[in-house]
């Protein structure tokens, strides 16, 4: 049975989610493995969401937000950048493959970039294989 990654996407409403929408309306093709949650800003993201996602079986987590300097709320993504950088370091030191968490800045007009990032990330996760370290087995 081929492994189909389950990837959680968390996208900020104003930039990445809109960019994803643009990818859709322009009929760009990208893998269907991404399940997207919309937040108003990346600063809403609690690092514990990411740990939880891996515990519930996510093979990868992709976070998308506005480019630094362009946050709809001015500074949200600047806090998020620091916070998520620490989360990445923690997951890495705990032994979870660092490549399973990715943070990208994708604006509302970057439909192409969204599709490209999802294609690339899905391929990377497929190569890494199923995430078993954090996943809680029933």
């Amino acid at each position, binding site marked *: 049975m081929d492994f189909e990654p389950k990837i959680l996407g968390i996208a900020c409403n104003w930039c990445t989610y809109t960019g994803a929408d643009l990818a859709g309306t322009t009929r760009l093709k990208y893998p269907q493995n991404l399940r997207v949650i919309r937040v108003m800003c990346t600063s809403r993201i609690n*690092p*514990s969401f990411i*740990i*939880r996602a891996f*515990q519930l079986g996510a093979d990868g987590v992709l976070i998308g937000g506005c480019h*630094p*300097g362009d946050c709809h709320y001015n*500074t949200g993504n*600047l*806090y998020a*950048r*620091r*916070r*998520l*950088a*620490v*989360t*990445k*370091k*923690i*997951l*890495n*030191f*705990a*032994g*979870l*493959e*660092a490549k399973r968490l990715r*943070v990208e*800045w994708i604006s509302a007009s970057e439909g192409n970039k969204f599709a490209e990032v999802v294609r690339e990330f899905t391929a990377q996760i497929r190569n890494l294989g199923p995430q078993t*370290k*954090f996943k*809680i087995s029933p």
Partner: protein
Amino acid sequence: MNGKSCCGDIETAGDKMTGFHEIEERLKSEAFRLLQAGEVSVVLAYGKGTDERHPVPFAALTTADVENIVFNEHCTHNMARYLLRYPSGTKIAVALKGVDSRAVVVLIQEGKINRDNLVILGIPTNSMRNQQNGQIIDARTTCGIANPVLFDILLGEEVHEATVASPYDVLAPYEAMDEDARWNFWKTELDRCIRCYACRKACPMCYCDPCFIDVTKPRWANKSPQLAGNLMYHLTRFQHLAGRCVDCGECSRVCPVAIPLYLFHKKVAKDCEEMFQQTAGMRIEDKPVIVDFRVEDSDKILE
């Protein structure tokens, strides 16, 4: 003075260091003076325990209590953890070693305590010993600084060492491991956790009420000590302490199952220093790194 304290010999690395006995005398004398003058309502220091090797945290409320104060190489507790347990505005005198004073700096940075309500009795020493195994406590298990960074009264001579070891050298073997080896290491260590929360209780920076792990909406983890919940608890705690932990090592010393939490906290502290060029608890004017940002922070930190 023949250099021998009532509690055993002191190893001095190089320079002359004030003996523990002398520090104890000065501590008691300052405590007495402050309580008698009514300058403080409580002096947080150390008291006699079951034996010489197990002193306990002690709060002197009256001049009569001062008699019970001790100080020796086993007074390893970080007394900063008790500061927030008193009503806001209480005048407190507190005995702080080097790293303990850094914790107070963080509490002041976070607006949890007023500098004016504290009389800090600073204790310079690099000869503390672990209560459990008697080993010297140095940069391998703690931040390694000998002199308080903040104090009102210094109870001994500042310690000046020829070489100061980096508190991050001890991480090298773990950083060199591959991911799977590191996972196996932490999985084994964290599986032992019994969720007693002694680490949280011992930490001066864990003052949140309620703590995330005790909240039921959302419930981040079950109460039972299983690996999944232990991971959620500890990894989240490492995140919550990023840029705030001062590497005092108390969490690891109080852990009943000897999980080397200090290793992970050191790693996060090292990464925060590299990414944000700031060390926790060194200057009152600093803002903790996670509640701050620079527009010019590099995206490289996300790689």
